[in-house]
């Protein structure tokens, strides 16, 4: 729905700061944390997904307008397709289930 436009864009600023923090945490987890490969992959993929969701809500106003529901459905649907494509391809081609 129509969002009240306050004078200061807090939503954008918070989204921006969160994105910076998430990027730096992912960098730390990947290069300096010393965790095992599996844990690192789980952490950085989770952080990337959170950051993508922040962009969708705070920058792209996905739920706005009377079509907000449809817009959200499209994104959930395509995220589903993307996960199946990527995870399925890796499963079949990299782990020898062919």
């Amino acid at each position, binding site marked *: *729905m*129509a969002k*009240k*436009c306050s*004078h200061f*864009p807090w939503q*954008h600023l918070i*989204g*921006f700061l969160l*994105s*910076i923090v998430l*990027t730096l945490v*992912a*960098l730390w987890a*990947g*290069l300096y944390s010393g965790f095992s*490969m599996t844990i*690192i*992959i789980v952490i*950085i*993929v989770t*952080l*990337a997904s959170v*950051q*993508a969701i922040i*962009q*969708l809500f*705070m*920058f*792209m*106003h*996905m739920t*706005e*307008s*009377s*079509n907000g529901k*449809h*817009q959200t459905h*499209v*994104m959930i*649907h*395509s*995220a589903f*397709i*993307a996960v199946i*494509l*990527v995870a*399925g*391809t*890796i499963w079949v*081609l*990299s782990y020898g289930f062919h």
Partner: protein
Amino acid sequence: MEYVHSDNGKHDAPDTPLEYQSETGRLNILGFWVFLGAEIALFATLFASYLVLVGRYADGPTPGELFEVKGVLIETFLLLTSSFTCGLAIHEMRRNSLKGLIVWLGITLLLGLGFLGFEIYEFVHYIHEGASLTTSAYWSGFFVLVGTHGAHVTMGIAWMILIIIQLVQRGLTKQTTRKVFVASLYWHFLDVVWIFIFTAVYLYGMVMHHG
């Protein structure tokens, strides 16, 4: 069909952004979300092939030898900041500030150009180091995935220049605000894709090198 009824009342409210005030505007924006859904499928196939080809270096350089934290972070923060300034541009547009909108779009444009400059420099550097599109399956996957994103950024920059010209000529109307909003969705989407390139290509590549 709820679209049919949606023109009654609530969209004429004075605080409804201009780009949502017409049926066409709302449907164009929904249509663009559907396009972005297709783009997600496109990039998913490129990510899938890239990830499957990790490790197929064919005696060429490995990503761990070539990726540098500093360059990747500069590109990441340039694009992330441009996504933020693009959001500010929309914020200004909804306050009916044409000048604010154009200024923030201009800054977004410059940051996008900066990103593109660094990416081209990075590609040229890799080619000098012996990693090109034809070096190995891995580098083919890399250049196709990251290059497709770079091509999208180039397209976004051209689009934004044309839109700024239209804004100067026509000001804020239902049509121009809808065009700006759709372009802003595209630009934010490019940052979303980059988040995953940063994670799956660069960070993962550097982690493997460390580990």
